[in-house]
Each structure stands twice: as C-alpha cells, then as structure tokens.
C-alpha cells in the first residue's frame, strides 16, 4: 500500500523534492504539497483504493505524511 501511496504522491503531489528521499513520516506540506495538489492526491487515492473519504477526513492533517494517508486508508478499508 505504501508503494501505491508513494507513486500517487509522485504523480499528483507536485512535491518540490523527490518522494523517494522522504521518510513515511516526513511532512508533505513542508516538501511542497499545496492545497490544490492535496485535492488531486485525495481524488487519485480514492480511485486507486476504491474508497471515498468522508467529510470528516477531508482535512489537512489526514494527508500530511505517507503514514497519515496509510492510516486513513486502513481505517476506511477495515485495515485490509
């Protein structure tokens, strides 16, 4: 799952640094993730994992790191 998240961030995140050089806990906003890019990441994650983020999860901190995104997806897919 982490590899899929990283590949979506690489494609849609428009980060100012290479995602490969960032740890799972690195702050993506510090790495150049903008609000608009985070929306595109969110929509790409929904497509890839066949999930829909509820309103309560459409928040900045849910997409702040690879680990945070993984935790959110695990919550929505029942940890599968």
């Amino acid at each position, binding site marked *: 799952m982490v590899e899929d998240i990283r590949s979506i961030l690489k494609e849609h995140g428009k980060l100012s640094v290479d995602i490969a050089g960032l740890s799972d806990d690195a702050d993506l906003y510090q790495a150049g993730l903008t*609000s*608009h890019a*985070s*929306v*595109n990441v*969110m*929509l790409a994650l929904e497509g890839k994992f066949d999930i829909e983020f509820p*309103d309560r999860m*459409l*928040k*900045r*901190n849910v997409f702040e790191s690879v680990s945070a995104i993984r935790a959110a997806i695990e919550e929505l897919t029942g940890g599968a």
Partner: protein
Amino acid sequence: MTDVEYSSESLYDELVRHKLILPVSEPGAFGRGAVFEDVLERFGDLVTRISKNDGAERMQFPPILDRKTFEKSEFLDSFPHLAGTVFSFKGTEAEAKELQAKVKAGENWEDTQSMTGVALAPAACYPVYPACAGTVPDEGRLVYMQNWVFRHEPSPEPTRMQSFRCREFIRIGKPEAVFEWRNAWHKRGLELLLSLGLPATSDVAADPFFGRGGRMLAANQKDQKLKFEVLVPVISKENPTAVCSFNYHQDHFGKIFGIYTPDGELAHTACLGFGMERVVMALFKTHGFVPAEWPKYVRDLLWP
C-alpha cells in the same frame, strides 16, 4: 436594542419600497437608487479617510480581466461555478440574421456565441498581481481600488448579488510584513464597522470552493486561518452576513505571477475587501431605511 426580525424577503421588500434598490427580472442584478449610492460613496470616503496615511497606491482596472490572467490565476480550479466568461458574436452577416431570428423566436441562441479574450472580474484584486510582477521594493507594495466583481450565484437574497462593488487593499511583500498588515487591518476593519453602530463580529472563514475537493480546500483554509470575515446580521441573526473579508494568500499569487522580494524569495500577498453593497444594507437594516433618521454619531462619521 429591541429585538430585530431578520428575513431575506422583508429586507428585499423594504429596500424596494424605499427605492434603495431597483428590481430587474434577473435575481442578484437589481439597480441601486440615489440614496443607496450616496451611502455607499460616503462609506467609501470614510475608508479613504481612515487609511489616508497608509501610503496606498491607487490602481483602477475595468470590471473585466484578460482571459490569460484569469486562466493563470487558478480561479477555475477553486470556483468553476462562480466564474463568468464573456462570449460574443463573431459570425457573418448571414449568421447574424440567424442569431436575430432565433432571439425573436424565443429560441436558444447560445450556439451563435463564442469565447472572447476577457472574463468578468471574479475579484477586484486579480489584475494587481500581474501588474506587480518582478521584484517589489524592500518595504513591499500597498495598492487600493474599488471595482465591480461578478459571481455567478443568482439568488433572491438581496445580500447575494451577481455583480457588486468591492473596495480592496492589497499588500505585497515579505511574509511577516504581509501577515502583520492583515492582522492590523482585521482589527481596524472590525473597529470601523463597530464605530458605525453595526453589531459586527469577526470569525475565521472559508471560501465557497467547488465540490468535494472544495470541502478539503475549505478545511485547509480554516485550519491555517488564512481567511477572516467581519460579519453583521442583515438577513439572519444566526447566520450573519460577511461584509468584509481578509485573505492571506501566502505565496500563491507570488508563485503564479512571479513576484519577488529583494532577497529573491517569493513575495507573499494578502488582500482585504469591503463588500460595499453589503455594508450599506447592514447600515439600513441596523439603523432604518431613512438615513436622515440615523443616529447622530453615525451621520457625523458618514457626512462629516
């Protein structure tokens, strides 16, 4: 103050009855009467008076924006539903006849129109950013203007207009200077409206971004406290109307339009805008529909 009753319909009816607004067939496109305009101009003069020592530079643009700037601004990424692009007829004489016949027959004539090089200004400040491209001086720049802006949101609520005037100040410069300026004006704007006897409060706010992605953008904006509004009850006590908003764009426009500080960093920008018609409606709702009967301290401020 005695209990005031708030409703959208009653405000609209009272504004019409006192000839303050002039109804037309399309919602949110009504005209403004002489007394309404006098109050609006007087409030504008008051804003000019309290800011006269700020050293702001005036820029005036038409209420249209060149389409390249409009596209570059990313307005369509956030608010595709609010934008208005200007379309026009570019056909032959025969096609003009076809257009006229369709209009006269009450048929749909949109296929006779095509896109022009301009959009209606979605915000008064947008043309300022490309005009400030390059390196700003060490102290930054401060610009002001008043302009008509368009939002495609037809509604019977008198406070929700498709076209209205916004009086804006725009600050461009180093992040800390811009942030402090925004905070100082936030306090000043609230005090100004309170001084006119308006029951104003201020709150963190979010823009009406489009769709589900928009809900995320709105949550981000609130989390980061990028937008504040000064609110006054006009058509509802529970949901007061925003009459003034303060927006901190961080480096959004600096990045898009290439605006830099002398140290080579991206400039930050912020703007504040008074929704002029909304301020005037708040005054009428709060003090009554006849300005001659308003409290003396309010009249003294507006008609010094």
